[in-house]
């Protein structure tokens, strides 16, 4: 076949850090603190709900409602109405998607046209940039910056957005801003005052807000997750994205959702029905049952949404102190699955990776030579800012203690 085959929209979006590093970790059989998924099982009640759904009537294995299985959209709207403080219509305001990933895809496809600008706060979950690009939009980046240098262990709360810098990036073509709270990879949990600053700009400049809140239940040290959609004037212009995978430690189920005002969600529905049409039925039913159960025990010690962050906080602390003890400087995350560490005090001697950024080199060296897999943080930055931030690597601590112990053994033997 001669001539160009592929569509231009796939230009420049073919490289993918996960494909590259997951393969490397597998090839070297490394202890994997790279990709963000638990290596422990989902809670029993949710696994049981799935089995029950699978053994349900024949309709559990056939097509369900395009925009979301009825029992799921109803339980999501019941659950979140209480939290957002707004009556969420299950059929108008909720779209169920194949993971939060597909919700993001629908949002960009439905709302971003050629030439539209989308502000992305850095560091960002890497898919935002290629998705904006594929939709013909232009990504405009604003980095979170550490407040000050100091001797104390930095916290993700020390990394902030400059209102002036953010404001300066807004033009008449800015369609939306994408925020992620708790943030991947940094772990920052935006405070109300920080979200209010962003909300004020959204309202002033009539922008949409895409709020990726997949780690919403995972906050530590008393940090509180705040939904920007619940701030005055924001429900009508915010798309809030959530994930059953992260909520119930079942990333392999690929059930997510987009929630917001029906006027906006209806456009995501059109993009959804053009791309996948509908999502797998049984998994949706299981997630619905999961939310029904959590609705009843919400705020009590029985709630998985309390138990999981409590368990993860211990793991976070353990890994953080180990990193510190070997000279890697961790930045304590207020939320999420990850902890990033400053690798400046280490120098890598591997000529095969000479042309690559320092963090990529360090990660590859650590996989090959030490058998420990992580992800380089500059993968979460734009080309224009990645050089400023290529001294960090990202560890996932949502792992069994045995995995974390194995990682710690490797780290303690570093100097040898």
């Amino acid at each position, binding site marked *: 076949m001669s001539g160009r085959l592929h*569509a231009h929209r796939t230009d420049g979006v*073919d490289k993918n850090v996960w494909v590259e590093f997951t393969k490397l970790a597998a090839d070297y059989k490394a202890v994997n603190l790279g990709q963000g*998924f638990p290596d422990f099982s989902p809670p029993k009640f949710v696994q049981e709900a799935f089995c029950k759904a699978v053994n349900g009537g*024949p309709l559990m294995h056939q097509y369900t409602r395009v925009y979301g299985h009825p029992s799921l959209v109803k339980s999501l709207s019941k659950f979140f109405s209480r939290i957002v403080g707004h009556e969420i219509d299950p059929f108008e305001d909720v779209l169920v998607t194949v993971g939060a990933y597909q919700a993001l895809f629908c949002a960009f496809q439905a709302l971003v046209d050629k030439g539209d600008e989308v502000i992305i706060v850095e560091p960002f979950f890497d898919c935002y940039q290629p998705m904006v690009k594929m939709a013909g939009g232009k990504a405009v980046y604003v980095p979170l910056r550490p407040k000050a240098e100091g001797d104390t262990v930095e916290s993700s709360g020390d990394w902030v957005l400059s209102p002036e810098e953010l404001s300066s990036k807004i033009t008449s073509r800015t369609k939306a801003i994408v925020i992620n709270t708790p943030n991947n990879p940094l772990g920052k949990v935006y405070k109300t005052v920080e979200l209010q600053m962003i909300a004020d700009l959204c309202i002033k400049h*009539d922008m949409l807000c895409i709020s990726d809140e997949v780690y919403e239940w995972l906050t530590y040290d008393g940090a509180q997750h705040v939904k920007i959609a619940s701030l005055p004037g924001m429900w*009508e212009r915010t798309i809030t994205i959530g994930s059953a995978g992260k909520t119930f430690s079942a*990333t392999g189920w690929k059930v997510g959702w987009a929630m917001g005002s029906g006027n906006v969600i209806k456009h995501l529905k059109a993009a959804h029905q053009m*791309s996948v049409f509908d*999502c797998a039925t049984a998994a949706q039913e299981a997630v619905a049952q999961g939310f029904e159960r959590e609705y009843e025990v919400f*705020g009590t010690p029985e709630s998985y949404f309390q138990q999981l962050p409590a368990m993860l906080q211990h793991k976070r602390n353990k890994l953080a102190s180990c990193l510190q003890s070997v000279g890697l400087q961790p930045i304590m995350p207020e939320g999420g699955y990850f902890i990033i560490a400053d690798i400046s005090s280490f120098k890598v001697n591997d000529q095969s990776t000479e042309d690559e950024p320092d963090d990529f080199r360090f990660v590859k060296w650590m996989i090959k030579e030490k058998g420990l897999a992580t992800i380089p943080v500059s993968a979460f930055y734009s080309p224009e800012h990645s050089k400023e931030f290529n001294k960090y690597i990202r560890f996932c601590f949502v792992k069994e203690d045995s995995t974390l112990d194995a990682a710690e053994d490797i780290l303690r033997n570093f100097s040898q």
Partner: protein
Amino acid sequence: MNIARHVLNCTKFARHSANINCTRKFYTSQHLKMSRHTHSKRIAGLDKNVWVAFTSLAADPSVVNLGQGFPDIPPPFYVKEALAKAACVDRMNQYTRGFGHPSLVKALSQVYGKVCERQIDPLKEILVTVGGYGSLFSTMQGLVEEGDEVIIIEPFFDCYVPMVRMAGAKPVLIPLRLKPGKRQTITSADWFLDPDELSSKFNSKTKAIIINTPNNPIGKVFTRDELQVIADLCIKHDTLCFSDEVYEWLIYRGHHHIKIATLPGMWDRTITIGSAGKTFSVTGWKLGWSVGPEHLIKHLQTVMQNTLYTCPTPLQATVAQGLLLNFELMGQPECYFSSLAEELEGKRDRMAAILQEVGMTPVIPEGGYFMLVDVTSLNQDLSHMVDDDDAAYDYKFVKWMIKEKKLAAIPVTAFVGDESKKQFEKYIRLCFIKQDSTLDAAEAILKNWSKI
């Protein structure tokens, strides 16, 4: 406990939730020139959808639903069992390989390797997607763009045209035509593509042709000669071929499913699409696949990694097991790929006989699980349906039939472009992959047709 108090007691959310209600009213009444919040151009006009329209009408439990194409018969028991087991394995509940779970792509390469008689690389020549639908989408987004033309054969599964449009390209339609002449029984084989007419549709802008065999809704199974005509044109004009073969196993006696990708010169320019939902009667699993040469599949993989990244793990693991089991049984009567077809042939024949008795003219399908029915001879007067005045006859007929006869079907003009509407507006589509009780109920309605 009072919900409001309960929420306030949940310390995580107490701070912001308490103050919302007063300030919210103020802002929403002040409201919002949302003037800039229009949708992107690519989804313009894509919100209308025949399924959304007719599924809600047919959802009334008193309606016998032969409309949307899904089985109400259960899937093979081993498939449900395997899924329940898979969910108990920790790893099966977490992310798997983006382009397809390893055991699934290996099983697919085995099954299709045998069928196509070639080595298929599981990692480079296969992509697992969210249903056949997801494969169609990845194919269009990966390979089709503004300035391209894509040839679509009518009647077509309704998503082809909007997907081509969403990719920015121009759909070029060509209808299957009924061979002239009177005959006792009409079958899907009586519908054909005029080679000269087809040839006239190809030009330098033609990026691809989409074929669907067995065809939905007619049930036509393209013969080797017919596929050769299409292949010759693809090679002559250097175009791609997207072959939707989701009903590939549902072939009735006397007919054979031919994969256009196996014709000389075609492997390198064809994407072949399959479906676990249609293969194992589990449409609600939404798993499908694209098979083709690496230089094409890699672009579909790029789309996948930027749209939903990966498909659900336990479902993939289970389909892999189902495929391997049936791979061993291929050629034997217990193989689900052939036993389902045998079961459906009986239902097809039963449906056709009832329709003929009542005076309607079915088009007997050679494959698939749909049957077209020509309702002309019923002479049903629909002039009273003023609300749907500009709708085609079959849309009005189906609406009337759901309301008056409590039997649901799908209007066939949903599957054709405007210019071909007149040719197809006397046809409705019935789905016969239904259990006996459903078909009994449909039979009762049809037998009582002429009574008020």
